[in-house]
Every structure is written in C-alpha cells, then in structure tokens.
C-alpha cells in the first residue's frame, strides 16, 4: 500500500492507495508545525492498516517555501567567479556577494586562474562579518568545476566549520545567474531542511513505520527522503505537481488536459499534453530570483472562491485579497462562491445570503442577483481562460534551435478541463465551455493532490558531456571527470557510459531500474572542425529513469 500526503497552505491531504484503489482519505487544516500536519493526516489514513503492509510514503510539503518566505535561515554569502561577459554590476542576489578573479570558458578551459590571496582576503572579510555559510558559483563551472572546488578546499582548510555549497551541483544547467541564486538557496535551506527530514524520520520510527519515504519535487518526480537533503530546493512548489499528477492518475490516459485548481484566493493552472505534464522550459522563480529548479509549467491567477468582488465604475472586478469566507457562509463581502450559490452551481452556504450579496453588488448597475451572478462567473471564467490560452501560446512559442524542432511545432488543443481542489467546482463547466472542452471533476478531486503524491515515482538523471578533442568526459551532476580515448570514443560509448552512471546512481538511491527503462532525454553531437579536418566531437547526453506515475486509479474502495 502507498500513502500520499500533500501539505498545502490551508489543508493537508492524505490518501491511502491499495493497488489501483483509494482505501482512505484525510483532509485536515494545516497546522503551524508541518510535521504535525503530516503525522495527523498519516494517522487518519493508516488507522486500520498494518504498518508492515505499507510500502511507500510520498510527502509533498511547503517546508522549503515556508523557510524561504520567512527567511528562516542563517545569512549566506556568495563568492562568484564570473570572468568576462556581462558586467558584474547587474548581479544582485540580495546578499553579501564578493567577485573573485578567475575564469573558465565554454569548453571548460581555464582562461584566468584563481588568485589565492584574494580568496583568503575575501574569506577573512566574510569571517569578520560573521558569515559561516558560503555559496561558491563560477561561470561555466558545470563544464569544469575545478575553480569552485579549489575555493571550497581553501574554505575547508581555513574555516572547517563553515557550510559550503558549490554551483556546479546546485545549478548544473548553463545559466550562471540562476546557478548563483540556486546555490544561495541551497546553502540557506539545507540545514533547516535536514532538521525537518530528521524529525520526519524519528516520528516514523516512533510509529514503527518502515516504509520507504520519498519527497515530491516541483517537476513531479520524487527523491528518497535522505537524498532529498542534497537538493532541498527541488522540493519547492511541489503542490501544483501533486495536483497535476493526481489528475493524470484520475483521468483517462494520453489526453491533453487543462488542470485547474481553484483555491480560496488563487487558481493554479497546469497542462497535461498527450498524457504528460508540461514542464517549464526554464527554472522556477523563487522570491523574485530566477533559479534552475525544475518545475511543471504552472500559472497562478489571483482569483478564487473567496476573492473579494466589487465595482470599479460600472464594471464588476475581483480583488486578490480575501476578507473572509463567502457572504453566504457568514463572510463580510460578495465572492465568486456567492455567485455560484445563486446560480445553483454549488451547495455551499445559504442561498438567501448569496442572493443578498449578489443583489447588493449588482444594484448600482441595475442588475438582478441572477444577472450579477452570471456576470461574475463570466468574469472569473474569462480571466482563467485567458491564462490558459497564454500558456498554450507560450508553449507553442518556446524557442527552437533546430530546423526539425521548429517545423514539428504544432498547435495542440485541450479536450478536457479537469477541476481539482474543490474550491469552486461550479466554475469548471464554464471554463471548459469557453475552451470548447469537456469539464471533468475527477473522483477524489478534493484530495487529487494527495493521490498525485501517492502515485509519483522517483526520477533520476545523469548528464554526460564528452569532449574528444580535449580527451575527457564528465558527469555534470557529480562534477566527475574521466579520460577517454580520442580515437575510439564514439556515440555508443558515450551513451553506454551515461547509462552505466545512471544505474550506479540509481543503485545509490536504492531504486530498481533496468537498463531498457532508461530514456535518453537530450542528445547533442557536434563534429568539431578545425581547419578542414575533424579535430574531435562533442557529445552531450542526458539519460533518465522513466517519468510518469506508478498507476492510474481505476476504482474507489471507500
């Protein structure tokens, strides 16, 4: 049996899955203590279960989001090695930042060496200001991490108790500013996150739960609890990933769907294209900083069932704030929920109160309660639909760098609008109608996020880059470098090497992966010509364990 737990801002949800059936669900208000929320929800769904039958627990939490939003971490300094390029004055990571001499180029060659004296002086400066956590990030460090490692070695030697995070691990993609920001966040959150992980482990031990525990990532994959400490920031924004995977598990396969999660004051929109959740082309924006954190493509609209409605001139508008519950549920002001109540699209609250709310709102415009409610629903559905259209447009206009990629670009239209979260189910048919889709409220929609967590599967990837002219290959995630023979190395060998490294990594993570399951997700081969002769080849491969969900939910058991 599997358990999925999703700790959201307002509610914590859990489900117990037995093969393809939901056996138990829980929905509780999220407590100030996240762990407490997890345990309370777990205890509810595990009430009649023998812990020995429990194989896996997947948790999606807001722990990182809360740490970062509340700045609940020690101060972190950044040591950057940008070398030539964009002027350093544009780098503003909202923290103490020192620029170091040194440069690596796009092929990982050192063009300017480090200056050890300068590094020592920078460290004294940080020490004097009381820093004990340092992120070190260099331009092109994923191509050659030697400079970052050298700086780390000096820190270890002089200040062995400092915590050091290196850019090539935290941000292995090509994007130096995002690498620096991601390194900063990793450095800031690792220790408090590790504390969270330890307390989860202790609490489960106390309950004699020995199931494997995984943490959901923003891209819909999972990591074993212990390993998640290596990339804590990857666990941010896992909520929308949980809902999207939930819809994937609860609706027919291979569909193109819009997932709409309408909450109290925000609506999250995600896309499933031909059965696969759409990933964001770039990393997440965290606290106004762009990072390299992989996430699903999610758009948030500041509107929900409890949004405040008011008049602006002779237009009805919604405001992003929440004054309280809907008027029909004893709140102070008209909300979209009142509109839904008036039109009979929800059973929440008192009908008479909803009528009053809509009447008051529409009176200055000479509208009846029903007319006002109609306008409100139209307005909300329109703004959500507009965002959905923008998402499709953005996806269609994502840059392509190869002719075949550009030519195969095509328009994909959704066939289903799936509503989850239960915030305002009544809106889903309206949105679907505007998009020409079928509205679907899947079974277990209120806990679809927990279902999504339960069916999420671990993903691991390995990126190999080989430069035969320089005679080496490297594994980006590990900063590992090995020699290759320039003449005999070829594409098959590159791929075999990448696969082998992935299997090693999987074994280290305790994941059972067979070689034929491995997917090649990125493949780039370039002949290097110098003069008129081939002087070498550049190979760039990314291989990963299969993405997707462990099962679909076919039947309910409850």
């Amino acid at each position, binding site marked *: 049996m599997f358990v999925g737990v999703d700790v959201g801002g307002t509610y914590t949800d859990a489900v117990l899955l037995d093969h393809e059936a939901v056996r138990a669900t829980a929905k509780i208000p999220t407590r100030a203590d996240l762990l407490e929320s997890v345990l309370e929800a777990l205890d509810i769904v595990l009430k009649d279960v023998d812990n020995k039958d429990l194989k896996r627990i997947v948790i999606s939490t807001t722990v990182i989001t809360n740490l970062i939003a509340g700045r609940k971490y020690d101060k972190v300094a950044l040591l950057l090695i940008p070398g*030539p*390029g*964009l*002027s*350093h*004055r*544009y*780098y*503003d990571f909202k923290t103490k930042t020192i620029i170091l001499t040194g*440069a690596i*180029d*796009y*092929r990982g060659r050192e*063009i*300017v060496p480090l200056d050890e004296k300068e590094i020592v002086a920078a460290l004294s400066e940080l020490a004097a200001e009381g820093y004990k956590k340092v992120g070190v990030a260099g*331009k*092109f460090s994923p191509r050659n991490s030697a400079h970052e490692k050298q700086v780390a070695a000096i820190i270890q030697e002089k200040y062995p108790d400092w915590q050091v995070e290196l850019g090539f691990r935290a941000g292995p993609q*090509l*994007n*130096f*500013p*995002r690498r620096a920001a991601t390194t900063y966040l990793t450095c800031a959150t690792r220790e408090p996150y590790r504390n969270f992980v330890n307390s989860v482990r202790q609490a489960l031990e106390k309950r004699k739960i020995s199931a494997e525990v995984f943490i959901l990532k923003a891209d819909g994959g999972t990591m074993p609890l212990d390993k998640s400490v290596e990339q804590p920031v990857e666990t941010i924004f896992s909520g929308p990933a949980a809902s999207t995977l939930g819809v994937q598990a609860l609706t027919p396969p291979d569909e193109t769907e819009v997932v709409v999660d309408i909450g109290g004051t925000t609506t999250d929109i995600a896309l499933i294209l031909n059965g696969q959740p759409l990933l964001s082309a*770039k990393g997440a924006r965290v606290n106004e900083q*762009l990072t390299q954190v992989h996430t699903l493509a999610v758009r948030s609209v500041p509107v929900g069932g409890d949004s405040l409605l008011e008049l602006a001139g002779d237009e009805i508008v919604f405001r992003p704030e929440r004054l309280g519950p809907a008027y029909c549920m004893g709140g102070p002001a008209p909300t979209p929920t009142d509109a839904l109540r008036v039109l009979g699209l929800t059973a929440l609250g008192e009908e008479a109160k909803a009528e009053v709310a809509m009447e008051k709102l529409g009176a200055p415009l000479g509208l009846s309660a029903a007319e006002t409610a109609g306008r409100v629903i139209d307005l909300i559905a329109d703004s959500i639909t507009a965002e959905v259209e923008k998402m499709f447009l953005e996806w269609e*206009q*994502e*840059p*392509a*760098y*190869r*002719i*075949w990629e*550009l*030519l195969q*670009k095509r328009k994909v239209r959704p066939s289903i609008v799936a509503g989850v979260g239960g915030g305002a189910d009544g809106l889903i048919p309206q949105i679907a109608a505007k998009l020409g889709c079928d509205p679907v409220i899947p079974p277990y929609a209120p806990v679809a996020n927990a279902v999504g967590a339960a069916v999420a599967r671990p993903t691991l990837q390995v990126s190999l880059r080989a430069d035969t002219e320089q005679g080496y290959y490297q594994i980006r995630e590990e900063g590992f470098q090995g020699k290759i023979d320039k003449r005999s190395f070829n594409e098959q060998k590159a791929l075999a090497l990448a696969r082998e490294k992935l299997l090693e990594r999987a074994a280290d993570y305790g994941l059972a992966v067979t070689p034929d399951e491995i997917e090649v997700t990125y493949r*780039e081969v*370039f*002949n*290097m*010509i110098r003069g*008129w*002769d*081939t002087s070498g080849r*550049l190979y760039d491969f990314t291989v990963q364990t299969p993405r997707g969900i462990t099962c679909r939910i076919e039947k309910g058991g409850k």
Partner: protein
Amino acid sequence: MSMSNASEKPTGLIFFPAFDWAISPTHPEREERLLYTRDQIFEEGIMDLPQVSEYTPVLATTHDIAMTHFCVPRVEDQVTEAHLIAAGAAILLADEIVSGQIKNGFALVRPPGHHSMRVVHGNRGFCNINNEAIMVNYLRRRKGIKRVAIIDSDVHHGDGTQDIFWHDPDVLFISFHQDGRTIFPGTGFTNELGGPGAYARTINIPLPPGATDESLLYIVDNLILPVLSDFKPDFIVNSAGQDNHFTDPLGSMRFTAQGYARLTEKLRPDLAVLEGGYAIETALPYVNMGIILALAGLDYSAVLEPDYQKFRESADLAGQVRRMVDQLLQRWAKRDQVSISQSDMTGNYFQHTKRIYYDTDNIQENQLEKLRLCDNCPGYLSIETKANHGYGQTGGKALCLSIPIDACASCRTEAADLYEKAKKARTYSYVYLQDKSADLFLGYDTANGKEWRSEGS
C-alpha cells in the same frame, strides 16, 4: 539580477543556430558555428534579462523571397527551410520593431545572406537568399517604411545587398570591409557608388588588412554617422558580420568584441542581422555578447576575449583610411550632381553587362541589365540572365523584370507588356515579373507553358 530602466522596451532577440544544417560537413558554414555562442549567451543568462525578449522564428513565405530575388527556376529550387527561417526571423523582428513591441532587434541566425544578389542561380559566398534585403523589401511593401539604411560590417564586401539596392535611391547601402584585392568577393571599391538614379546611395569603404577598432570607429564617426544624419533613414539595418575579428580564419583584420559593441552603440541600428564570422570559438561568443548588450543598452565593458589586446595601427594605415573617408565625403556631398556616361545609354535605357561568379556552387552567370530612365519614378529594371553551371552544363536564358515600389503607371505598363511579349517569344526558358508596387509576382515556364503567381496577403 537587478535592472534599471525596466520601463524601457526590450531588445528582441532571435537565436536560431540551425544546429542541424550545414553547407557540407567541414564547411565553415556548419552545425557547430554558433555552438559556443549558444553556450556563452545561455550561460550569461541573457534571455532572462528584462532588457532582452527572445522570439522564436517563423518561416518567410516564398512570396517574400520572390519580391526580392529572381530564383531560377523557382524559389523552391534555391532555398531550404533553413533559409526561410533565417529570412523569417529578420522579418518577424522588423515587424515587432515597427509595431513598437521592441526597441531594436538582433537576428542571430544562420545561414547568412549578404552575398545573394537579385538573381539567384545557386549559393555564393555561403549565401542563397539575402535575409536583410528580403526584410527591407517587406517593410517597404507592407509597413510603409520608405527610407532604409543598411550598414554592412562583414569583412567581405556585401556585394549581394549592393546589387539588390544599386538602383534604389531610398535604400542607402554602406559596406566597410577588407580591401577586395585581398579577399572574396573581390569587389567593394570606392568607385562603386550606385546606379544613375541612386548615385552615392551605395558607399564602399575598403579597409587595408590589419585595420583595428581605431579605424573602424574613425569611419563610423567621420563618415557613416554624418551620412546617416543627412540621409535620415526611417529604419537602420546592420549586416552584422563578425569576421573583421582579429582571430577570424578568413579575414585579416583586427577588430575586437569591444569594437563591435562600440560600433553597435554608435550606429544604433533598429535591426542587426548576423552575417559571416567563422572564428567560432575565439570571436563569436564574445562579439555576439557585445552586440546583444550594446543593443540592449547594457554595460559591455567586461566582454573581453581571453587573448584581448589593444591593437595598434600604423600611422600609414590610419592615414590611408582618413584620406579615403575625405574622398567619400566629397562624393556624398555631390550625390545629386551625377551625369551618366553616354556610352552606357541605349535610347532611354541605362544598360550594362555583368559577370557573376558563384564560388560555392561554381556557377558563372552573365547578365545584361537595363534600367528604364524615367522622370517620374526610379524606373523598372530588366535583367537577362544566363548561368553556366560548370562542366559545360548551361541553363537556358531567363528574363527578370522588376517594377519598383513607387513605379509610375508608364513603367508598370511597359514592364507588364514586356513580360507578356517574352512569354510568347520563347527566347527565354523562364520569364519573371516582380511588381513591388502591386505586391505581385508572376513566373512563367516556357517549356510547359505554365504560369505561377503569388501576391501579398
């Protein structure tokens, strides 16, 4: 990253490296060309800057091509999808600039185009179709842009662009390049100044090998900017070749990324379009960064090649450049006082013959070009062309008729009559009528008696 001036419009960037296209596997114009540029601009996070807005290209239409080039026998025979994408990228950015979405743009695309002339029988100087010319003609036909200046900063003379706008008084073409006596295509001398109706609207600045940023900035300040200020273009294009770089394997000049960035900053082009540049590791990543930052109004002072140095020019070379600039300024001052040599006249027509060599495809083309001298418009142009594709294989003759955008009724009628007559005469294998004033193209295949047409939508 924190940025000032967030209210200003961004620079539009299309990066299309065509990683799956090459002229041949070891050709300079191959898949790998923009690989390290990709690495550099991605690693710098350029696309994340609020001052830069990345676009994905669209394909130009065959009609867009046909309104600039006479492709023999047809557009489809001379262009691949890669060419349509490169030209389409330039058009898309130009559209966004004219409509005010972006403040300027850079089509960092390949394949290049500035050696492609009006008539296209094949590839010359790595080019099949002229991206800038196609874009400029699009703006003039469709967006009401009248006066355009094109500044070509490639090490090779932009002979294709020169050919296309030779007779056009509303398109100013300025090319500075390495002296044609020392490099392909062997043209671009100071006496090449444009047709009788567009005298000095073509300006060539052949630079001695070894010229540095110093001479580059001298000609910009003392020749190009003053001429631009007289000409008052509605739209400025930079054919941004990067092979004047001190590390380029084909050129012998000594410009740096700083020089290119400074050029861009001074020139303030609306749209820059990549042309040549084959020092793919040592120049392109840095020069492209410099151009992007300069267009976006960002500090580029730290964009330095690993082996950057401030090159020194000999006094001799500098003096040579100064004298040439003076001479060209005098010609520019007298631009409206040209008299046509009577030997070039046949009745009311200005005519001359041209031999054009296609180095990539080894084609020898012979042209007889006739311009109708008209008091009311720039006059229509007729080109009789015949190509010898090597190994004695000779194509038939083709007749190309081009009606300018602001043509008078009499020129239009005469060209249209000529087209109909040529169709019947069977002297030509192909007959074409390119009517820019009506946004209409007609082509006729004499062998099968079939006509095709395309119109702007």
